């Protein structure tokens, strides 16, 4: 138990969480058919990077720059989500579905 607590407050612990989030995000993007699901996967990937930045900034450099990057990542994620939702909404109006597999008029 003690080891677990120690691990959870170490750099490795944070990096492990980041890596797991990243892997889940990739998995989510690859397997989801629903456009919103894919969007959530992208958010997971971005936040995995955010966790890494904060952890490295705390344990590795001791500077604040990594934490600032994390803030900017949140900002970008919000901007991207806003555009993505608008696009998905319009797609839904035209096609009555948000299934990503339905986006297939253009094929080789």
């Amino acid at each position, binding site marked *: 138990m003690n080891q677990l607590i120690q691990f959870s407050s170490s750099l490795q612990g944070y990096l492990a969480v980041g890596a797991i989030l*990243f892997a889940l995000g990739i998995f989510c993007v690859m397997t989801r058919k629903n456009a919103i699901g894919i969007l959530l996967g992208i958010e997971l990937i971005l936040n995995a*990077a955010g966790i*890494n930045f904060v952890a*490295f900034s705390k344990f590795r450099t001791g500077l604040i720059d990594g934490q600032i990057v994390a803030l900017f990542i949140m900002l970008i994620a919000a*901007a*991207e989500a806003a555009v993505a939702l608008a696009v998905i909404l*319009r797609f839904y109006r*035209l096609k009555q579905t948000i299934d990503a597999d339905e986006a*297939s008029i253009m094929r080789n």
Partner: protein
Amino acid sequence: MSAETLHNIKLFAPEVCLTLFLCLLFIVDGLIPKSRTNKVPMMVTIIACIAAVLLTCKVGTTSEAYFGGMLVNDGLTKFFRYFFFFTAAVSSYVAFGSSEIENRSRMEFSLLLICTTIGMGIMAGATHLLVLYMGIEMVSIISFVMAGFKRDNLRSNEASFKYLVFGGVASGLMIYGFSLLYGLTGSLNYPQITAYLSSTQGNLGLVFWLSLVLIYGGLAYKISAFPMHFWAPDVYEGAPTPVATFFSVGPKAAGFAAFLRMVLTVFAAKTAEGNWQMLPGISLTSAIAVISALTMVVGNLSAIGQTNVKRILAYSSIAHVGYMLMGLVTLDRSGLTAIIFYLIAYCAMNIGAFWVVGVVSNLRGREDLDAFRGMGWSMPVLGTCMGVFIFSLTGIPMFSGFIGKFLIFGSVIKSGGFLWLALLGVLNSVVSLYYYIKILKSMWLDKPEIAESLTLSPYHAFGLVGLAIPTVVLGLYFTPILEFAERTLSNIL
């Protein structure tokens, strides 16, 4: 405001100027009445671009890092600023002659175009991972909107949707790669990252290579290089043609600028002769050669079976990225000079070719090969210009594309070691002739189904001839451009 801040803002002047024009455009939009032929946004965009070019001339003599080393103003930034402002001005001219950009949304189009141009300028000058990321996202997120500009068109929406999903994943991969690189080197600044990487003497662990692959994923998406190229045909086909015209040149060149700067200043160091050398333990030249080869082959082979001309040009633009990457494997001045020449030639001929497609698709409502039937006979100026662009894209002598390819293949052969790559490049050019010539065959040799009299408006004729002239002239007289490229490269920080 301190003197240093003022000086920094002065170096950032072209982007600041565009931002001010952006605000001006908002105000102008409210003042002018919405008439049917409203060309005011285009005028403002072009004036903004001209002002930005003049400011670039003014700040371009110095070569220094500014804003605390986050951005850099050197030869490469200067060249790419000229390139982006020119591309933005021409794209807005193209867009305002097209019926695909509806009159009611022309103002928004201009706003988005100027925004993207600011982002591209930031990408070209970034020497800080966060600034690079912000620049890339500024370009990407606005590009998603531009791709879906025909709001009630399913194809346009689909293009936007695909662009968004792939773009989101690619930038996610890239920022995760940045976080690993930051953890490894302890800094976000290029010079400090380079200092750390050279101090390790090549003892870099798996994490470094993982971060490199992830960062490449993000940048390859922007320049549409293998293996992140598959979005390009779908997005170019679905997006309005003027937008595709812009995408195939502007954001792509911006990605290329970021890629060049990263390879040259982070993973390589300048040698005494003015060439570059990879840091010990990080030899990426073979990797770049393989990527270049795959990008060319995939682009050209996929283009062969296509019937939609926009798709053909999309695949061809992928292949051209392969040729350009080839100039990077030599890591010397001749290779980089060739890349810069190629970018200039590519800008004129590719915008021209897409523009012709846009004109035809406005007339016929579609852009497959059949829509081009007999277009050369009914509109000789259009047909001739398309001939010039297509010959130049193929790399036939007497046109600028040939000189570009000649310089790139020449530099690769001269440096030795990558002969197979140059050979593959030549083979690819031959293959590309097959699908390019199909377009010209359709325009000049096939008879139209119904005889019709079409006229090319002077608006389009002026622009197309204006792009065809440099395409021909640069194929015959190119010394000034080479000298300009040499000057550009002589002061890369």
